[in-house]
């Protein structure tokens, strides 16, 4: 919508400019012409000649008021006419532009027909208006994404409750009983969001050749590391890679440091 608005403003300005320029040129030439006529043409001689001929005098009598009328009204009428034409042209060009934009489906045209504008637009406008607030919102988003996986594991498997427990107070059997349930639920959640899979799908203890241009972020070398790859070695840890990374859409605002809300039961 603002594309159409800015186009409207600019086009109006330029149209008026050129129309007034044209108007100025025409009026100036008309005025110069009129001056030339009054100075170059000997009117007194014509009037004197007109004394002789009653037809000529009648003719001049008819023409003179007309000429006077034109002289007084020419300027205002021409200005009004040109401005009106300029506005008409502007309206026509603007509607053509709007229709083309709408058909092309560009972002600046009609919104998707929903009365409530979506979040990204609000954020963009807010961002444009206030860069400090936008940066703060972005930081808040980052923090929420950082905590998100832990939030999920706490919600689905109560992992944080477990990690924050004091294990010294319990024996192995008690801990084991609780851990089975936590393990199962956390594993399901991890599988749904990240689906961890082995980086190298082989058995640990098997021999493995590290290729020439290996990515050090993918394979970590330990032991007798000298010379140039390829290296012949033994696989000690298969590694973990996320087979999928479906990021959630985090909306709204609020305390971004919350891992799990407190629970209060109303009897």
């Amino acid at each position, binding site marked *: 919508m603002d594309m159409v608005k800015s186009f409207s403003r600019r086009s109006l300005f330029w149209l008026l400019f050129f129309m007034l320029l044209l108007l100025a040129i025409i009026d100036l030439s008309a005025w110069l012409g009129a001056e030339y006529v009054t100075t170059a043409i000997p009117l007194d001689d014509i009037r004197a000649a007109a004394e002789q001929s009653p037809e000529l005098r009648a003719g001049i009598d008819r023409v003179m008021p007309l000429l006077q009328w034109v002289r007084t009204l020419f300027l205002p009428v021409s200005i009004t006419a040109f401005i009106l034409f300029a506005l008409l042209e502007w309206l026509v060009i603007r509607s053509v532009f709007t229709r083309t934009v709408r058909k092309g489906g560009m972002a600046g045209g009609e919104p998707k027909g*929903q009365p*409530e504008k979506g*979040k990204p637009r609000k954020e963009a406008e807010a961002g444009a208006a206030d860069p400090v607030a936008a940066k703060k919102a972005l930081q808040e988003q980052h923090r929420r994404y950082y905590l*998100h996986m832990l939030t999920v594991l706490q919600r689905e498997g109560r992992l944080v*409750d477990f990690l924050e427990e004091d294990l010294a107070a*319990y024996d192995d059997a008690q801990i084991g009983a609780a851990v089975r*349930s936590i393990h199962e639920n956390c594993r399901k959640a991890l599988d749904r969001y990240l689906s961890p899979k082995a980086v190298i799908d082989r058995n640990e203890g098997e021999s493995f050749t590290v290729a020439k241009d290996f990515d050090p972020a993918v394979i970590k070398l330990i032991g007798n590391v000298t010379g140039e790859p390829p290296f012949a070695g033994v696989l000690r840890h298969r590694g973990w890679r996320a087979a999928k990374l*479906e990021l959630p859409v985090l909306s*709204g605002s609020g305390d971004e440091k919350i891992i799990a809300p407190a629970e209060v039961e109303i009897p």
Partner: protein
Amino acid sequence: MSEPVYIIGIDLGTTNSIVAYTGIAAENGETADIRVFEIPQVVSPRSIEKRSVLPSFLYIPTAAEASAGAFDLPWKSGSRIVVGEYAQARSAEVPQRVIASAKSWLCNTSVDRNKSILPWEAPEDVEKISPVEASAAILTYMRNAWNHEMAVGNPDLLMEHQDIFLTVPASFDAVARELTVRSAALAGLPNITLLEEPQAAFYSWIESSGDRWRKNVTRGDRILICDVGGGTTDFSLIQVSEEDGQLVLERTAVGEHLLVGGDNMDLALAYFINHRMAQKGTRLDSWQMRGLVHGCRNAKEQIYSRPDVETWPVTILGRGSSLIGGTIKTELAGSDIESVLLDGFFPECDATAMPMAPQRAGLQEAGLVYASDPAVTRHMAAFLNRQAGGDGQVMEVPTAVLFNGGVMKAPTIRHRIKTVLNSWTNGDREIREINTENYDLAVARGAACYGQARRGRGIRIRGGLNQSYYIGVAAAMPAVPGIPAPVKALCVAPFGMEEGTESQLTQREFVLVVGEPVRFDFFGSTIRKDDPIGTVIEDWRDEIEEITTLETTLDGPQGTSVRVNLDVRATEIGTLEIRCVSVEDGTRWKLEFNVREQA
């Protein structure tokens, strides 16, 4: 109005809803594959994720909860109702503010289905909606999610412009179907077609078998479709015959709508374990009970997937932050599952078994009408016996069975049902199981598949009306004071009346008074399948059930009376329309189903 680009199948389930879609097939016969639409939904406040399933739950948050955009969706901010996974999670924690099983309320005749009654028995300050509006809210959510994900910048891809097939239980009567169509219209989806869920499951199997399906059924096969979902159980019979050398499928019978399903079974297991623990002195509060249900469900799935494992631990973690200290440990054994699930819900029974009707308490709490006898096999026996006709007729045991629904993922349950069915054949033969794979998504996929069939690609199951429908006519008898005139049942729509056909009841003329409300009693029968239109039955109470009333008010000059015939139409989309047509000038008035409370 643009041409549809997709065929969309919507399974509006009691517990879970699924949307499947496929492209409208190209001319040269290649069928596009069927995909499940991942629906973005609120999973926890301020967090939206895509899931292949949309739980059919509606949560009404308090104003404080919904502040700061906690439940804002990408296409709408500030919604008053939350739909989906978070609503399902909250239904255990705050049950008064959650609407669950909206679909089961659509066929509940003991309430006014257009009145704002849900959430059921919620406190005063919770804003209520009607069952029709609740179903419409779920469909609206699906539509908005689709339009946001699939139709960006291209109005041709909007959901309202596609071919939509909405599944309903086969046992839904004409009134419940009409209400389903109405809720779809409320959701901005005016062009939908209804499809029965067991048929959809069958279509899904046909599609997944490809052309080999014809090798798995033969002429004369009677296929029982046994669909046990989260909240409901549905039976259908499909007959396979042959015409001009081609196999022809026809849906010949449907069962009653039974409110018993997988959720009942999980609860039963939990109560069983709870009882055992109470005997040892451990009492559980409601929070721990919920944890127990969840744990039992997990343990059951683990035992099913590991045939060599006898027991599985069930742990209820301690409340609050004292996780380990408050842990209660117990275990679920395979024998527990057998005694509770198999013997409780799928007991072995005779071919003549009938569902037990327990003693009714004097006062009954209003609400959903759950099945009084949870034994699915007994209901199955009653269903098959009803098809046999009068007494003395032997039940025709089906030759093959197709299973559908989340409950049927368990092989032990499938095996038990087959054992029971085999026991009814007196050892003549073995019942065949038609192997299908996807018990959860089959219905939605099948609906998308049916859409292809409607466009001429693939076989269509002949169906038509799922019941015979009747209206009540007063018997012509001298009036006896104090005794209401006996009512006879007049058949207006025979069983199996094909979709898109219309017929007039010219044997009977009615004289109706203009300006006064007109009321006809409306009945239905799943047993009487051979009555042609116009049959009058005097003693109908055994085989025909009351459904509701049909009402209208004729407009015209007051006090005059009009002679009308009844005109019955089975629409293309799967609903029933009955009109009064004036004999003189052909003016038509539509009779509306009364969905208020039936006494």
